[in-house]
């Protein structure tokens, strides 16, 4: 395995020809490696050690961690700060940016700052509505949405200009990502929306949780027909469900998550629901990786982060590759 196949996350490696960022994720995806990312939920704390504790759980299992930006409209440590802390240990971080809480002025400032501390990948999101979270009284901003956000960041990177047209002396070298939800109506519009995101600048895609492989296959077939899988790397969202009750709760309360009845029945009928949830997740990863156009998986294991290492190991998707982590080279 060469340095370029399995690069150390944090080093400011030279920008390779044709690459947008010096980051690990872009290198792995372009090298054709099946890539694993995981969601890191930022702490409700000002202690950086809590970020490291959460990161260490994923050591050796994932290629990069997504620092969420007030996910579910709940208040947590900011994504840019989590990324800054992760970068101290050379971890590879994907900074999530949501349009719910900040306008175009604030976001552009954060992106320059993030690139300055070595953040190489940014996931552009519209964001959940404030009604979903712990501060429903807050003013929703939504000055931009995911597509206009992508276009703005691409302009900063490729034209070295702010949205206003003012010049940036050193552009942010970032690999741009977006989300996709193939599981919610209007289903026929979902591939078109993905095409628009790619046209606006998305280079990688992380999807919403997949619990319905058939629907994903239909979506991916259309995506491949349109040639979109050749224009962006698609990582499918997966995760373990803790129990039938937890699944039911997610279905009711978390916007955009589609869980078929068959999955809930299977969990409910199991003697060890947590174990069954993990098994379903492993099966999902193995099925998903066989689908044409899928470049990796994005694991979201909220409050079950300790299962991620086993899930990745037992699904054998890394094919013997151990993702870089701090201390990997120590004897």
């Amino acid at each position, binding site marked *: 395995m060469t340095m370029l196949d399995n690069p150390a996350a944090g080093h400011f490696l030279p920008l390779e020809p044709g690459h947008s960022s010096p980051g690990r994720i872009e290198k792995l995806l372009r090298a054709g490696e099946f890539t694993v990312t995981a969601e890191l939920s930022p702490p409700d704390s000002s202690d950086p050690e809590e970020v490291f504790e959460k990161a260490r759980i994923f050591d050796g299992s994932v290629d990069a961690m997504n620092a969420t930006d007030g996910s579910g409209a709940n208040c947590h440590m900011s994504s840019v700060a989590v990324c800054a802390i992760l970068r101290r240990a050379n971890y590879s971080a994907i900074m999530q940016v949501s349009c719910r809480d900040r306008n175009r002025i604030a976001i552009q400032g954060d992106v320059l700052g993030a690139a300055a501390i070595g953040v190489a990948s940014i996931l552009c999101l519209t964001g959940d509505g404030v009604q979903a979270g712990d501060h429903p009284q807050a003013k929703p901003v939504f000055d931009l*949405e995911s597509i206009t956000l992508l276009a703005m960041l691409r302009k900063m990177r490729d034209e070295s200009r702010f949205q206003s047209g003012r010049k940036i002396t050193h552009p942010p070298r970032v690999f741009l990502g977006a989300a996709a939800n193939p599981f919610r109506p209007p289903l026929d519009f979902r591939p078109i929306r993905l095409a628009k995101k790619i046209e606006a600048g998305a280079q990688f895609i992380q999807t919403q949780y997949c619990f319905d492989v058939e629907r994903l296959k239909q979506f991916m077939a259309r995506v491949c027909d349109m040639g979109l899988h050749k224009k962006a790397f698609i990582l499918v969202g997966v995760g373990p469900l803790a129990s039938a009750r937890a699944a039911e709760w997610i279905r009711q309360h978390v916007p955009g998550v589609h869980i078929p009845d068959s999955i809930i029945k299977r969990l409910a009928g199991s003697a060890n629901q947590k174990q069954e949830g993990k098994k379903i997740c492993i099966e999902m990863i193995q099925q998903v990786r066989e689908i044409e156009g899928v470049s990796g998986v994005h694991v979201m294991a909220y409050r079950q982060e300790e299962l991620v290492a086993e899930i990745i190991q037992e699904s054998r998707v890394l094919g013997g590759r151990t993702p870089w982590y701090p201390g990997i080279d120590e004897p």
Partner: protein
Amino acid sequence: MYSVRRWASRHARFFEAVYNGFEAVLTSLHPLFRRIGYARMDKPVAAVEKLVKGFLFDTKMCGSCTLGATGMVCPMNCPKSMRNGPCGGVRSNGHCEIKPEMPCVWVDAFAGSRLMRDGDRIQGIQAMVDHRLQGSSSWLREVRRKKGVPEIGDAAG
């Protein structure tokens, strides 16, 4: 609730034709508008525009109208102001994540676009909103754009 604007989106092809005809009429009035002055015309025309479009489409008068490219549905009725398609939060019944009683604006927009002659315009990317244009007439802005009459904030017009 929402019945008029949903009715309008179900007749998107008809309103597309009406709109195209109306635009031609407005454009032919350009010499008149110019003589009176576009700036002076903006308030009264915007008032009429708000009345008509508000009744038919519940429009929010953002000043950068996209009706013809969004299935004759005003995307500013989306609580997240999505102008390029539905977010991932749409409920399985096709209703809005934020206002559960409201059908998703983009579910209606996509259905409306399928009825239109130029429905594939929905695939084009809409630029971000210029918030300075809120409340101004997009009808006049369209005529100005066609006739090459500049204005402040023209980039978004």
